[in-house]
């Protein structure tokens, strides 16, 4: 999977951004929408698509390099992978392990789940709630802790 921006692809093909969006909508270009104006696509699929457009080889490579870079910008410390496209590219797994089912673990779990990640919450004891569940009330509002 690589990430690209609609504008970048429209730029090298010399078409309007909406044209590219229309191709994606009509499935002529098999890309999946991401966040913002970014889309995901299999590298083979985008190569096959571009090969039909009679573009010079360099333009295609330049676009793909740029597309890969867009992706890596989101990855801290890419440790050499990705930039060298000869190597196998890895997409991160869209799930997170949360260890501890106290108030902190629960909050992290909720935030991640609500932002579109699958979360595995691991708790040592038989139920979640942690220390806060043991409290009667909390300062400074004296709200019930439960």
């Amino acid at each position: 999977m690589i990430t690209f921006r609609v504008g970048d692809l429209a730029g090298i093909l010399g078409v309007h951004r909406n044209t590219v969006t229309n191709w994606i909508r009509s499935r002529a270009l098999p890309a999946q929408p991401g966040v913002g104006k970014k889309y995901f696509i299999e590298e083979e699929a985008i190569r096959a698509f571009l090969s039909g457009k009679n573009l010079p080889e360099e333009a295609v490579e330049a676009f793909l390099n740029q597309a890969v870079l867009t992706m890596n910008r989101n990855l801290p410390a890419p440790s050499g992978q990705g930039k060298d496209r000869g190597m196998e590219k890895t997409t991160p797994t869209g799930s997170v392990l949360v260890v501890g089912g106290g108030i902190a673990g629960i909050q992290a779990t909720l935030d991640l789940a609500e932002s579109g990640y699958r979360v595995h919450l691991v708790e040592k004891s038989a139920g979640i709630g942690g220390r806060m569940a043991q409290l009667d009330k909390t300062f400074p509002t004296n709200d019930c802790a439960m």
Partner: protein
Amino acid sequence: MTLSQVVSVAGNAGNYTVKVRRSPRYVDMDKCIACGLCAEKCPRPVADEFNEGVNNRKAIYIKYGQSVPLKYAIDPNACIYLTRGKCRACEKFCPTGAINFEDKAEIVELKVGAVVLAPGYQPYDPSGEDYYGYDSIADVVTSLEYERLLSASGPCMGHLMRPSDNREPKRIAWLQCVGSRNTNRCSNGYCSSVCCMYAVKQALVTAEHTHGDELSQTIFFMDLRSHGKEFERYYEDAKAKGVRFIRARPHTIDPLRGGSGVRMRYTTEDGRQMEEDFDLAVLSVGMEATQDNKALAGIFDFSLDSYGFAQTAASNPVRVNDGVFVAGALHAPKAIPHAVTEASAAANEAARLLSEAKGALAVEKTYPDERDVTQEEPRVGVFVCSCGINIAGVIDVNAVVEYAKGLDHVAFVENNLFTCSADTQVLIRQKAEEMNLNRIVVAACTPRTHEPLFQETLKEAGLNAYLVEMANIRNQNSWVHQKEPEKATEKAKDQVRMAVVKAVRNKALTRLKVDVNQKALVIGGGVAGMTSALSLAEQGFPVVLLEREDRLGGNASHVSATDFGDSVPPMLKDMIKKVEGHPDIAVHTNARLKTAVGSVGNFVSKFETHGETRAVTYGAAVIATGAKESIPDEYGFGSDPRIHTHLSFDKLMQAEVSTVQKADTVAFIQCVGSRDSRRPYCSRICCTHTMKAAVKLKTLNRAMQVVVFYRDIRTYGLREELYRKARELGVLFVRYSPDDKPQVRTTPEGVMVRGLDPISRFTLEIEADYLVLAAAVEPHGNEELVELYKCGANADGFLNEAHPKLRPVDMSVDGLFVAGLCNYPKPMDEAISQAQAAAARAAVVLSRKEMLLDAIKSYVTEHCDGCALCVDVCPYRAIRLQESTGEDGRMHRMVQVDPALCKGCGVCAATCPKDGVRVHGFTKEQIKAQVASALESLSGGRA
């Protein structure tokens, strides 16, 4: 996954394979209905760890009544069958056949991209400390045990009893710093940072749990550390309510004759030997790192400090390793809001790492189809909550239940200990189905906190979420009428009756969908604002960043090192470079926000930058406008160049270190402008700032005399180390009281500071080369934002969060999030984690392409004649006047409501003279019915 622990991990950030060992529960989770018969029949009692061993549970147990999941488990170390091979009583009595002794431990393999660790803390165990007498004296309990004694769901059902004779204690003493700030009997040199406040809270809450007027609460402390938002007021309130605060450490605790109560001996500050008897002593135990920390550090490869807390860098306080993030007490003792903030921050860091795979594995929750109830006769189910003793302690809930049974349309009534608990939700669903209920009334607490929960339950039961109605018999009744239980019960009946007549008239409503503008606005270009901006941009959301000054950096540009010694300038430089270089961040300096309209998902603002006005549209905003050091107006500040504030002295130390280090004496005065009548809050950072400066001075020149005049030293958490270091280096600390502040006069030789040393009772005067005033931190520019967004600020001018414990970065206006010093003074590491948390919370809003709005909105009826009275009164500018030409060629005027802006406040409906505009869920018909019902009790019983 419960009863589970991580065993090992393989792989790299982004792609881990984690092995988790799931211990056997011996109960089939699908079959268990939590009826509790097993525990009733189980012959083996075990000390209940949830209640801190105050009472017993059985070998088959649930942790507590509201436990999630609400499924029993068998404790294999206690179960008679599992330890000795005989019994199986639970299996015999279980009505669903859920007991499974064949259950085996299994290793589950999980593929995850990132890990968040939040194992928590363990309370310090005072066993073995002879002078506290915890082992030998029944009436010495730890604070967590006391918390359970107070709790309505605890072993005493909220009726406080001391362990020795089950009588209600009247004279209660709290001992602070048990297992904290102590390197003598234990090796916990740090401050646990929460005990002062929980002790004050327990002292205040105790008054609600006891009867009569003889109660006396005494807190023995070293420094009272109320360094959080609204904490100082809480402390002052406790003093005003008669809680006694004594600065002393009792050295001997003996049992009283007869086996109940304790005798304490302590020395007051002025050297008097005191002896006093108490009915109960509470040890305010500190937080310790859990044993799990070591195991987790080994598995996930990160380092721990000497106390066993995880080590992190100030630039990213929640990261311990690529892809491994921490939250809560794992890396320092901390209070709930800070832990919750860090949890969101850790979620943010995980999301940043995995943004590319967002949504790939998410699953949507599905609900059954909604049943159409329009043709059905209303059948109301009423659930009356006891809220432990919160309601049932005042109101006769059974009488309310009996009363509700007689009301029209009521088909089912029940009382629950906690109607909000997970098991009650199951029950509500079951009853709705069994009894064919189509309206639900919950008589409990406030819809503000709990209505969403019950709406969810209705949806799961196939009913429209708006068919639930709440009667607030706690906040509006039992809490305010504690002294008049009978009248309170009558009022509760009225409230239930009113809720029922309204519920009968509730209609199914549909929530409106709106598109979300997936862009963010960040106001403030300090460390907090920049952190939020970077976090959001790296998750793929375009950000507009506004900074009031002509450069980024904020207060951090005046700071050289964090509290834990990390150097700030390189970190700041790097951060500014990243922000300015990021293609998705548009930075505007010299910018001021001018307007703000719209609501969550769709805001529009205008701002001025370098003389031109620009517009920005965004779905969510992070406010991080910071705060500033106040200018002192006492101790001769401004009259002499040798009198400094922290920031000006820091600057001097950097610019002229060779001159400063030649000084013979430097004096510091704490709480300058803080904790007084003008600013009745603690500025939180100044004690640590003084320690940093004092330690630096002493390191430059060991012979230098450094004297600190203080009220309470508040180096909370691991910052206590700096205080200890300062004392080790010979810094002198002289306490002063606010009624007897140090006197300052200037002479050509030096700045003379005079104060009374409370221990020797001598007045001392020192001649200082420099006097440094720890000036208060004060908010700036928040009023404008409050005005623009209609968000809240507290009495001190700091922006308010939606809930001080559980929603510490959300603001009262949806879609707005707060980070950094504009919320409350805080050190840089806390500002950064709060900014990360704000980004995470904003990302929750921005991740969705469209969102659902509340269905409580106003709508226009055919009665509207366009008089436009409502247009002027609408506080959200949601109503416009629309003119159109009808078929007859005549001009028609009608108002139009923008549902995205409407908050359903009802001002329009109240203003309209002709029923031209109504609010869904609060129609005139519904309100009239409620009023008529309320008046029934006045006209002598039911009409």
